[in-house]
């Protein structure tokens, strides 16, 4: 299933400048793995070594924070949009 993923400015170096990329997956975890395959290095920027989301990065499914859904296990459906939204503070990420 194709999912649209919005990439924030600090991560666009990894996506060759793209602000939006397509990914495959039935849940958020699968999408992250798929992104990592196509854009190596992206996963470690948003996940800890144990695979959990970093505490200064949020992933939104449409306009909802996945932490308040089923987190990385949140299921996806066609035409869903995912946004990676890191904390920003004047140039730091």
């Amino acid at each position, binding site marked *: 299933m194709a999912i649209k993923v919005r990439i*924030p*400015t*600090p991560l666009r170096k990894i996506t060759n400048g793209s*602000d939006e990329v397509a990914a495959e997956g039935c849940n958020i975890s699968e999408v992250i793995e798929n992104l990592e395959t196509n854009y190596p290095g992206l996963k470690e*920027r948003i996940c800890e070594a144990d695979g959990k989301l*970093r*505490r*200064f990065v*949020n992933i*939104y499914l449409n*306009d*909802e*924070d996945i*932490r*308040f859904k089923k987190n990385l296990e949140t299921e996806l459906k066609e035409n869903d949009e995912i*946004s990676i*939204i890191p*904390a*920003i*503070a*004047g*140039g*730091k*990420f």
Partner: protein
Amino acid sequence: MDFTEEQIERYSRHIILPEVGGRGQAKLLKSKVFVLGAGGLGSPSLLYLAAAGVGTIGIADGDCVDMSNLQRQVIHNTDTVGKPKVHSAAATINKLNPDVNVVPFHGRLTVDNIREIIRDYDVVLDGSDNFPTRFLMNDAAFFENKPLVSGSMFRFDGQVSIFHPAKGYPCYRCLYPEPPPKGLVPSCQEAGVLGALAGVIGVLQAVETVKQVLGIGESLAGHLMIFDALKMTFRKVKVRKDPECALCGENPTITELKQYEEQACEFKAATCES
């Protein structure tokens, strides 16, 4: 309160708005707003808050005006390069609107002084440029029960929200529990920011602050506004109150202010002429 003739003229475009009126303008003139940082975000916020007639404006900043600031920090000017930012900002505000009482603090906010400094204000506005200060401000606003109008930016992106746990809304830690650790941020040379973006985000903060003082409209509390200047899009997403928040959750583990270590590149020696 009684307005002078000059005040009736100065604030006439507010007073004729039914949502503001004389009563709202009087509220603004009696209000006290604290602005952390007289930089990219603080500059436009301060100008509009002063123009709106916010009666008391506190400003804290430990830096001095640098030539490289003037690309976006529009409250300062070429003549004030080298001067403390709080004094440069105060001078501009005094020229703009003599009704405003400016309370400048030239120094760093720390665990030891921040709560007392913000205590007398109705609303606090965060225009800081680093994570340690951002978390310190959030925690202090929580302990002092203040609404926090938060803005931040990076290159072409900006974020705005209001955090107000005292009214049942989330705090910054509900959104982002911890700052990034050292080593995970790009070097300062990689950063940069579109000057006019600071205007967009800072002015949005001023709009939310004025609404908060007047008690009108729907506030951004419980939401995060995300602005992408390159695509010219605004997106509003939900921010939930986290019951497990270490600060404002049901079983808090943060019970006093904590100071995070600064990133090495955030440190700038304040070189002031006077």
